């Protein structure tokens, strides 16, 4: 038990937007009291040995346990909560609805405020849990499902600068890893093999680079270029230099992400640049951004790995800001696909 925590604003966060069923309790928008992700619970027996997946039914089977576990680990009961925060989009509607309905039920039964959190904004908030972010800031959210650049004036004032027109950065990693037969998840696999490769061996296209004030991304053409290269090598019967292709591909993705982020930071006079989402774990991306930003005196922050992937602590953190501004959701809250 952590009795002192009860004087604080305690937000329960719930996240079921995609593959992970997660719940967490965060105090005062900063202090993580618990952060439970179903797929990480070792006691799989409880769930019949099944690791939760995409299916909303899997969310349904595990969500109640995950919520209870989040409260127990935080040392609090339902009555101690200040509000319930839930991701309501974007994501798979059937999956989102599980979290949304649990949150609405709790809010109604406990007579507590309900706040609706945008999934991409919650990824940004993961940084607020661990870093003293100075504003204005620019955040790059890059994951399997999202690639977005955001301009942040404060924790609550944000503006979307650009997003991907086709594939997400993490998706490009996964698909290129698949054609190179490197396994899943693709990001870490490419990051690893690229160390032994020459990033200049192949010249892959950098879409939209060098265009001022355009913060949109595109990775579909890059993916096709890698597949074409492989196809041509195979047709000529040549050995596939996997490490070189991985390194050259990764260099192209990193160049695109770094160039756009750097441009955004420059044009918005950002003091801080934040990375968020699964791709934030890529070492080359961190290194290259660090190099580029240090030159301009900009601080780079990124969350630890467990807060880069989908989790509910970031939802509770983002929910805290909404709660403080009295931006509550009604019990008619719905899930949004986009």
């Amino acid at each position: 038990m952590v009795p002192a925590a009860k004087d604080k604003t305690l937000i329960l966060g719930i996240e079921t937007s995609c593959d992970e069923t997660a719940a967490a309790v965060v105090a005062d928008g900063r202090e993580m009291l618990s952060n439970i992700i179903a797929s990480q619970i070792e006691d799989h027996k409880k769930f019949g040995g099944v690791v939760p997946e995409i299916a909303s039914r899997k969310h349904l089977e595990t969500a109640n346990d995950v919520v209870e576990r989040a409260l127990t680990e935080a040392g609090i009961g339902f009555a101690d909560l200040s509000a319930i925060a839930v991701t309501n989009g974007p994501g798979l509607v059937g999956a989102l609805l599980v979290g949304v309905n649990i949150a609405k039920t709790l809010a109604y039964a406990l007579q507590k405020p309900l706040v609706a959190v945008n999934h991409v904004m919650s990824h940004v908030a993961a940084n607020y849990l661990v870093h003293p972010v100075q504003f204005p800031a620019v955040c790059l959210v890059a994951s399997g499902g999202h690639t977005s650049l955001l301009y942040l004036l404060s924790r609550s004032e944000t503006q979307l600068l650009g997003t991907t027109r086709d594939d997400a950065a993490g998706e490009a990693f996964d698909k290129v890893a698949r054609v190179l037969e490197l396994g899943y998840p693709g990001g870490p696999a490419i990051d690893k093999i690229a160390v032994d490769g020459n990033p200049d061996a192949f010249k892959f296209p950098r879409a939209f680079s060098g265009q001022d004030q355009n913060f949109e991304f595109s990775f579909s053409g890059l993916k096709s270029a890698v597949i074409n290269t492989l196809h041509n090598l195979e047709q000529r019967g040549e050995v596939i230099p996997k490490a070189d292709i991985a390194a050259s591909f990764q260099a192209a993705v990193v160049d695109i992400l770094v160039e756009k982020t750097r441009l955004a930071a420059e044009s918005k006079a950002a003091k801080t640049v934040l990375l968020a989402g699964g791709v934030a774990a890529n070492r080359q991306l961190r290194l290259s951004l660090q190099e580029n930003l240090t030159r301009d005196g900009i601080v780079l922050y990124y969350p630890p790995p467990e807060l880069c992937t989908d989790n509910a602590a970031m939802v509770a953190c983002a929910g805290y800001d909404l709660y403080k501004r009295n931006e509550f959701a009604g019990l008619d809250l719905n899930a949004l696909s986009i």
Partner: protein
Amino acid sequence: MDTVITTNSEQETETLGQTVGELLFPGAVLLLDGNLGAGKTAFARGVARGLGVTKPVQSPTFTILYAHSGRLAFYHFDLYRLEDEQELLDIGIDEYLDDEGVSLVEWAGKFPTFFTMPSMYITIVRGQGEDVREIKFSAGEERYRQLLTELLARS
């Protein structure tokens, strides 16, 4: 009724999709297959444009479904990450397929025994040359054969 239409660039693939989108009727189901990088999402983006969807059409690989609104609702599925038929039911795909909106399903070929409803089956394969694609349309039911006839008249 089978037809093959050749496109010479991603843009042409998207434009062909747009023409299909303009011809679609309520409740239509398009099943789409082709290897990674074949241009499925480009074709789907075209279909969305033809249906009057103006917002960006991103790849639904990660989220599995993006629902757009246009002249008709447009349900854009990508089954790349799914492994068995039960998962299709878990995401509620049958409700979307029965809806008045248009469903386009990428990687439908992974589940041949599931998609037995009337539909247009479309496969995209590489042709001779890097950006050349051969797009094969197969229509069984009358409404889809009619759609295909109109598509041929237009392209």
